[in-house]
């Protein structure tokens, strides 16, 4: 690989230390299948505790921070600008989305450039948000959306989608509604919502030949819960068609549950802004 002259570089080959973990230690046992009971004690369709906050990046037009369990994502949105290198007129405005894991956010260190996974996630993020934004309101302009994962504890993309939708509304970009997203994982006959990183790893590998059920996979679905519509559906793995319906239903219910949390957060920020305005008017008098 060519050396990046724009950064301070380390030695050419470095090895993460966790591959040399003492095999006798108890900690290192890795599960092959999803456990009957989830390690954090949740129900199979129970979501993790969620914390959202808007307006955390002062320089951005709108921004949001989301915490789901260990997962932490920051997202910011900027003023519309003319689409660069564009010839001709585009009737609909564009969303430019960039999804990035910070180098220290995953078990294995990420490189500074976007890798193929992050590029794919950027596109999913764009598709999930595009249908919720009134793009006809800003023809020939693009709105930049940047999502940065600070800590990956699983379901980062779903968290990024929700943070981005909050950031877009914080930036007063005209929207049809909020977007919520939930990740589901299937492994053999088990089915979990809002996966942790450990569960994600298990669900993305096919079970052994010998096992009865060879179902496995991860589903990320983004909804517009206020309209009962689905804006993005992304699936990896392989599973029986019969499994699909209950999965979609479970996710849709979960997405609906998330909506009030985000609405509350937005109401809070509006109230805060109103209060600030009031105070200012008082000071002016």
């Amino acid at each position, binding site marked *: 690989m060519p050396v990046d002259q724009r950064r301070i570089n380390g030695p050419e080959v470095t090895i993460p*230390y966790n591959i*040399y973990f003492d095999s006798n230690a108890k900690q290192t046992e890795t599960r092959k299948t999803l456990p009957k009971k989830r390690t954090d004690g949740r129900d199979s369709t129970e979501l993790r505790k969620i914390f959202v906050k808007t307006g955390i990046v002062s320089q951005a037009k709108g921004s949001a921070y989301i915490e789901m369990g260990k997962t932490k994502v920051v997202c910011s949105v900027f003023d519309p600008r003319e689409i660069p290198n564009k010839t001709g007129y585009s009737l609909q405005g564009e969303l430019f989305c960039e999804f990035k894991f910070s180098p220290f956010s995953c078990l294995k260190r990420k490189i500074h450039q976007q890798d193929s996974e992050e590029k794919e996630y950027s596109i999913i993020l764009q598709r999930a948000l595009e249908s919720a934004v009134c793009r006809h309101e800003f023809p020939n302009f693009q709105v930049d959306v940047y999502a940065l994962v600070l800590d990956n504890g699983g379901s980062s993309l779903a968290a990024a989608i929700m943070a981005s939708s909050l950031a877009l509304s914080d930036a007063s970009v005209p929207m049809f509604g909020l977007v919520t997203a939930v990740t589901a994982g299937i492994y053999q006959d088990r089915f979990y919502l809002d996966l942790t990183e450990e569960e994600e790893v298990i669900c993305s590998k096919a079970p052994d030949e010998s096992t009865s059920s060879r179902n496995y996979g991860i589903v990320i679905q983004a909804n517009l819960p206020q309209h009962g519509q689905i804006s993005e559906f992304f699936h990896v793995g392989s599973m029986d068609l019969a499994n699909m319906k209950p999965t979609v239903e479970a996710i849709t219910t979960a997405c609906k549950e998330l909506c009030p949390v985000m609405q509350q957060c937005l109401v809070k920020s509006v109230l805060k802004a109103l209060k600030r305005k009031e105070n200012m008017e008082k000071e002016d008098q």
Partner: protein
Amino acid sequence: MRRNLPRSKYQKGIIHPIKYLRDYLERDIRPDGRQFLRVRPMSVNVRSITQADSSSIFKIGNTTVVCGIKAELAEPKVETPDCGYIIPNVELPPLCSPKFRPGPPSDQAQISSKIVETVFLNSGVLDPRNLCISKNKLVWVLYCDLICIDYDGSVMDACVGALMAALKTLTLPEVEHNPDTGAIIVHPSKRLSVPLKGAPVCTTFALFEDQLLIPDPTEEEESLALARLSLVIDGEELCGVYKAGGIPISQEVLMKSLSQSKKRAELVRKLIDTAISST
């Protein structure tokens, strides 16, 4: 007079920013309501990122920098067989300010990385020999990534602060290395902290007309300043004085900035220590 305006939403799009700032400064106050020599409130948070070996979040006013350290193993350089590596990189992603665009690191990010590296090396906080596991064979590589989340001036101060807080909380697992077979065994349960000495603290100043010196400038002040000056203090000693161009400054101003940054250094050091002991 209107003070303490939330900057982001109301002050953007001022028609004549230079005059706007000058009007404030003439009335002996800064646009955010601060006195000339006051610094913004700071806060530090450590160990909040679970996937990193150590992490910290350093805030100065709105400015936020996240530092995460990932440790990996590598062979040492031939010329320094008993020295580990410390690779600090500052990232100014487009997320933190509309000034930056996606793509390779901007000149500013590169210069910030270099300054952080120089400050780190000059201060001698961490002896790279302490990162040696087995001479000539195996050493630690500490990838220290500093990501700016909110770019609102004095980013270098936040970067240095975040790096120091993260290094102070860094623990590395015990490693057994057999020099003959090359076998490596890591004991994840036995983690040891790395010995550090001192803690450099960086203070940025902005200079305006008539040699007016203000510490801890916001992005708005920084971009309109006639010159910028950064001082790095560690205890009784200095380990970096960095000024690139701008209006020339006299020795009196330099002395003033020195005494100001000493006060600030004490403040930041205490802040980091309390943040670490309280978690």
